[in-house]
């Protein structure tokens, strides 16, 4: 092979990379442009803040889901873990005498720690069942979806946990320099995940464990441990998302988070991460989550009737990915 073909190759690789990275971004931009013309409020500072805030919870879940899907797994339990972590942590931060546990409200940090622990624990159980006992991730996390919901109802006695302390609510309603806390947290999670997946050794192990588990193992990587870790990450982030949700709405509902797994997985897949593992980026997930939020927001802004909304939303998301795919092919 000559130097010339080498260059050609590099150019080809770059074009492919561009399409892979930016194909769905173009779809997002396109939708945004259309919405800007269609509705005067869409491109206002306030609405942008809204959209970002509305992306945060699904975005955080989707980032955890990205780790899981990269290893060929799936985590259906995030929605239930959202509820469980929300209820448990809220019970430590409520001023209600009936819904709280003895001594509540505790300091917000303690409550948040408890929620995080709940999420991590749920993820750990998922991870052990998947990695050690080789139960397909779909079944293992579907079991957790059911079990965690049941535990939520049991823990809370079927009732919401209301009246959360201001300290606790800060993560949902506070802001830093005008940027809402959920967005701040989401951004932090995103950048950490971006760094981990693209720069750290653990990130390489995640890609390898998903791309070719056999090769990873032969290269000395403890694939089971990597798998366990990704479920722990997903569970922990679900716990975090659950607390932000409770803090935003002001009470932790036992019905919170139902079907959130679908949106989270959708964001990941729209963002170009393959369900068969090993391929994908957290930037894609961000764009996928934004796309979902923008479509929801835009349709609401324009006051599109709910039934049409569902039809349009379904069509739009498929169309966006089709656009992305067309670009892939062309390149």
């Amino acid at each position, binding site marked *: *092979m000559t130097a010339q073909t*080498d260059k050609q*190759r*590099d150019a080809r*690789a770059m074009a492919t990379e561009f399409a892979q990275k930016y194909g769905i971004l173009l779809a997002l931009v396109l939708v945004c442009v259309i919405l800007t013309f269609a509705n005067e409020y869409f491109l206002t500072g306030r609405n942008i803040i809204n959209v970002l805030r509305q992306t945060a919870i699904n975005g955080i879940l989707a980032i955890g889901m990205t780790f899981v899907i990269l290893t060929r797994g799936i985590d259906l339990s995030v929605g239930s873990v959202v509820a469980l972590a929300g209820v448990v942590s809220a019970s430590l931060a409520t001023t209600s005498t009936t819904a709280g546990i003895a001594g509540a409200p505790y300091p917000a940090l303690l409550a948040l720690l408890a929620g995080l622990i709940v999420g991590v624990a749920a993820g750990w159980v998922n991870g052990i069942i998947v990695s050690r006992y080789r139960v397909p991730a779909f079944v293992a996390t579907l079991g957790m979806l059911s079990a965690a919901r049941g535990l939520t109802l049991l823990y809370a006695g079927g009732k919401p946990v209301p009246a959360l302390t201001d300290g606790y609510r800060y993560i949902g309603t506070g802001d830093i320099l005008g940027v809402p806390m959920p967005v701040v947290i989401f951004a932090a999670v995103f950048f950490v995940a971006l*760094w981990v997946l693209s*720069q*750290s*050794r*653990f990130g*390489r*192990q995640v*890609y*390898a464990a998903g*791309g*070719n588990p*056999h*090769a*990873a*193992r*032969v*290269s*000395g*990587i*403890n694939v089971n441990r990597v798998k366990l870790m990704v479920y722990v990450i997903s569970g922990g982030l679900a716990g975090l998302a659950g607390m932000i949700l409770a803090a935003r709405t002001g009470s932790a509902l036992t019905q919170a988070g139902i079907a959130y797994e679908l949106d989270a997985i959708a964001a990941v897949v729209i963002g170009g991460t393959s369900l068969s593992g*090993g*391929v994908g980026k957290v930037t894609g997930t961000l764009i996928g989550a934004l796309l979902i939020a923008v479509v929801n927001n835009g349709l609401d802004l324009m006051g599109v009737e709910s039934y049409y909304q569902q039809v349009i939303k379904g069509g739009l998301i498929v169309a966006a990915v089709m656009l992305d795919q067309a670009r892939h092919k062309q390149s």
Partner: protein
Amino acid sequence: MADALLEVNGLRKQFGGVVALSNGRFVLQPGSVHALCGGNGAGKSTFLTIVMGIQDRDGGVIRRNGKEVHFEKPSDALDAGISIIEQELSPVPAMSVAENIYLGREPAGFLGRIDFATMNKNAQALLDELHFDISAKSLMMDLTVAELQLVEIAKALSYDAEVIIMDEPTSALGEAEADQLFAAIERLKAAGKGIIYVSHRLSEIFRIADSYTVFRDGAFVGDGAIADVTRESLIQMIVGRPLTEEFIKENTPTEEVTLKVQDLNTRGWVRDISFEARRGEILAFYGLMGSGRSEVFERLFGMSPNEGGTISLFGQAVDFASPKQAIDGGLAFVTEDRKGTGLVLSGDVRANICLAQLEQLSRGQAMQSRLEADAAQKMIEMFGIKTASDRLEVSGLSGGNQQKVVLGRWFLTNPKVLLLDEPTRGVDVGAKREIYRIMSDFAAAGGTVIMISSETDEVLGMADRVVVLRDGRISGTLDRAQLSAETLVHLAA
């Protein structure tokens, strides 16, 4: 005498009911290349993967430098200074070459941040040193099978291990690349390392190995120094009976042109390919890796778009738009990448053999299971496929036997023109001979065989004419009379 680098005794392994290994025995001395020989399914790969800790053993003892060891996972073996090139290529497709090479031990700095610059630099240096023309930054999924093989070699060498296991490292390589590997092996040997070398290309073994061990049917048969053994006696040990000649060629080409290709272009860079193949002929395509041979075949078989040129089959202009049309037109194509485009690994032997004949083996929609079973049985016998039953998953077959399954599938289609892309890749001497016999019979019965091969011996032994490709163009066409190793290599490079 100092302790051997590796000493293995009585290694046993079963899969379900299949005894893969009943008595694996092996001794590796420092500074030597030790060939592990045996037919397809003899248990070589099983033996080596157990040594590497990839699989559990059922019994037996492994000693490393005289000390008994028990590797539970590959990382234990790596830690003990053993590395492996596995028979089945196992890339992480979405990662770069450098990332694959340093997988699990990336140079890292603060907080485990990977030092990509250093990694790429080291990887490129390694590749350059081996004279492998691959960019460390390219993605594995963009590489050809041969290039993947080179990366695996580079990776195994990069561990700086004392024992390096090479399970058929050259099966996907051309001779130029193989030479680079042999040079590297010489350097390792000089540095006192031990190499376990598996190959079905006996000439390689006689060229680089110092000693040999032979397995047959999962058991140790014998060992010794290469200097003390002849090719014939080694073959006899492997096959279990004497084998008079390695190549069988009884076809006589006719003048009747079956396939005529003119000015064919494909994949953007393969240009102006013109040749004709005749009834009763074995036509070989020779060239270095990446010379575009596979691209030509893919075009003929309707797997890539028409970019100019004409093809005529039995005097009829054809332009197949899909493999289905090509099959219906009387073509068969044994692809070079049996894992990627050949086998349905999760399917059983029978399903794989019958895959291209579903219509013929069914009545309406109903498959005729008797016909399927008979067809599978016929091919298992014809190629001597070693399998407990035709209902076993092909993933459980040894590499060479998997190759035979693919061959069986395409012979079953009763093709008029056979396209074979490295048909004997990974096939043992005994079976190779069978394949040559089948090729020869096929041609003798009026078929046309077009074969890609990177093994000069094979081309010299089997071809009636040879088309040599270089950089996507034909650099020459040779008659059998003009054939010699030198002219081939000269035209190809």
